[in-house]
């Protein structure tokens, strides 16, 4: 694990701010009716996505569920093309056919966001199998929500990865609610990382990884980096990142399942504020630089929206293309 230098840290800060500004704008565009369907915001969870993806090498793989905007941006997808996808435009990363839940970029080995809870877990196992089969030394980072740990796919996929010793980091983003049902109301164990114990023992099969502070980008980076190296050498490992989504499950969530006070508390201890404070403490006179990054992020979002709005709608040809390989 390389210790991040100042440049890297500022890059992470930029990514986190960009994700935050990007999603705030998405919420506005949704309310204006420019974004349709579902919109699941990542706001509050930025440190987990940014820190975990920073732990990967370029040839490693990322796959996630439907709360995927932050993961896509952290993996370096062009905000313009992500925003074009949000608006259902032909320049979108999925040509306007995927939408908010189905962002992907094969070039960056980002295999996509998936709309079925748990549905991408066996795919992650398969991608890892391909890596192992061809001895490529590539690791798959599979992010999932806490809700996915209760679905059948979780069991079958983690078990198979254990039996076949597949190079996967299974990363639970425990934001404490599966839609509106809290972890305690949905899972037999609330310390979700313990579920690894069902799939491994005595160094064989699944390794039970750490339970980490998902609001601290540095800790996420360090812990996931270790997990990635473990997976590369030995096989699957389960990691749990404790985080919190500051917005509803998706747009229009009445949020009856939690209190305003609870949300306020997390806003105060939010990942971006914490990281900013860390940087100011660590580097003298960095504040103007951080302000500049904040302003840049806003400009990038403006540009992305401008680009997306100017991108054409998909056509009939797009409608019927890519059903099959011709």
């Amino acid at each position: 694990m390389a210790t991040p230098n100042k440049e890297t840290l500022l890059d992470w800060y930029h990514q986190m701010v960009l994700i935050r500004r990007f999603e705030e704008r998405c919420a506005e565009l949704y309310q204006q009716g420019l974004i349709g369907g579902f919109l699941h915001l990542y706001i509050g969870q930025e440190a987990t996505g940014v820190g975990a993806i920073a732990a990967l090498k370029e040839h490693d793989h990322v796959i996630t569920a439907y709360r995927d905007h932050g993961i896509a941006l952290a993996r370096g997808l062009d905000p313009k093309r992500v925003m074009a996808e949000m608006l259902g435009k032909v320049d979108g990363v999925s040509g306007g056919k995927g939408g908010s839940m189905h962002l992907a970029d094969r070039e960056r080995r980002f295999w996509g966001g998936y709309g079925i809870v748990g549905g991408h877990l066996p795919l992650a196992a398969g991608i890892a199998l391909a890596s192992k089969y061809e001895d490529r030394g590539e690791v798959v980072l599979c992010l999932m929500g806490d809700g996915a740990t209760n679905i059948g796919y979780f069991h079958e996929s983690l078990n198979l990865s254990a039996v076949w010793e597949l190079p996967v980091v299974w990363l639970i983003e425990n934001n404490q609610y599966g839609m509106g049902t809290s972890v305690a109301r949905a899972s037999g164990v609330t310390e979700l990382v313990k579920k690894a114990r069902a799939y491994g023992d005595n160094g064989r099969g699944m390794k039970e990884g750490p339970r980490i502070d998902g609001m601290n980008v540095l800790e996420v980076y360090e812990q996931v980096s270790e997990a990635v190296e473990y997976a590369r050498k030995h096989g699957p490992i389960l990691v749990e990142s404790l985080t919190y989504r500051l917005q509803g499950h998706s747009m229009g969530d009445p949020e009856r399942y939690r209190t305003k006070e609870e949300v306020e508390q997390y806003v105060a201890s939010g990942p971006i504020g914490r990281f900013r404070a860390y940087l100011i403490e660590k580097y003298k006179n960095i504040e103007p630089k951080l302000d500049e990054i904040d302003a840049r992020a806003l400009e990038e979002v403006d540009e992305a929206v401008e680009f997306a709005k100017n991108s054409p709608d998909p056509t009939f040809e797009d409608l019927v293309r890519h059903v099959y390989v011709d």
Partner: protein
Amino acid sequence: MADRPITIREALSAALREEMQRDERVFIMGEEVGVWGGTYAVTRGFLDEFGEKRVRDTPIAEMVIAGAAVGAAMAGLRPVAEIMTINFAFLALDAIVNHAAKVRYMFNGQFTVPLVIRTTTGGGKQLGATHSHAPEVIFAHFPGLYVAVPGTAYDAKGMLKASIRDDNPVLFVEHSTMLQRRSPVPDDPDFLLPIGKSDVKRRGDDVTIVTFGKGLEWSTAAAETLAQDGIEAEIIDLRWLRPLDLEPVFESFKKTNRCVVVEESLPMFNVGAEVAARLQDELFDYMDAPVKRVAAMDVPLPYAAEIERMALPSPEKIVKAVKEVVGG
């Protein structure tokens, strides 16, 4: 090289072996494919020949068998996943329908899924309600997936090899009571049959029988009976439910003007419904009689042999249906 008569089982084995020899990326995964040699013995000897890496026993876990095969295919391998019977494929429905069939489309062509899922189908073996239906039509509902339903050894080999070489996901459905059927099959390692082409299996001028899979066997027997009464049936074997090739059906129907669709599917929303709808749409002015369907009865299949037989199609039922459309 002269074609040898071999069984469907041997044809499937040969197709798998040849394609695995040809392409390192091709591998087999599924329940009991390795040590056991396949529950229908199609992969017997493969573990010794190709090793554990390429002949992978899985837990009994259909969701991940299908799902991991999709992921492996997306990431560059060419998996042949085996789901022991199509009834278990219901457990894998999400992986097959939501992912195998859709990832290419919803990510705008960024991914390909060169996947074959082999499975067996069919009743008539007293396996009771959960192991006996022939629900391949369900899978043919979805764009993005191909569905193969061979009825002869020749077709089984040529279609399986073509499926493995194709870059699209294929559900390859073999009938569990037909694995011992023999027909001449080329030894040529590059013997391939085109994807989505149906085949005229018997010539006749009086009625068009459209069928596939086990229906081919029943229809052939029925055609022989009918011939004794002077009725010559033309049998079109669809071979694929997707892509569905109805051109030979249309050609035949223009001549015979009468059609019976034979299948083991349940009677509602089945291939017969599709064929009948398409015929009246495209060839209304050629119709001389309503299109008849012979399918399984609209009940879950029972255990007892006597009543299981009643529920399934038979040559007698086909003869009766043909006489209804031909008769006076």
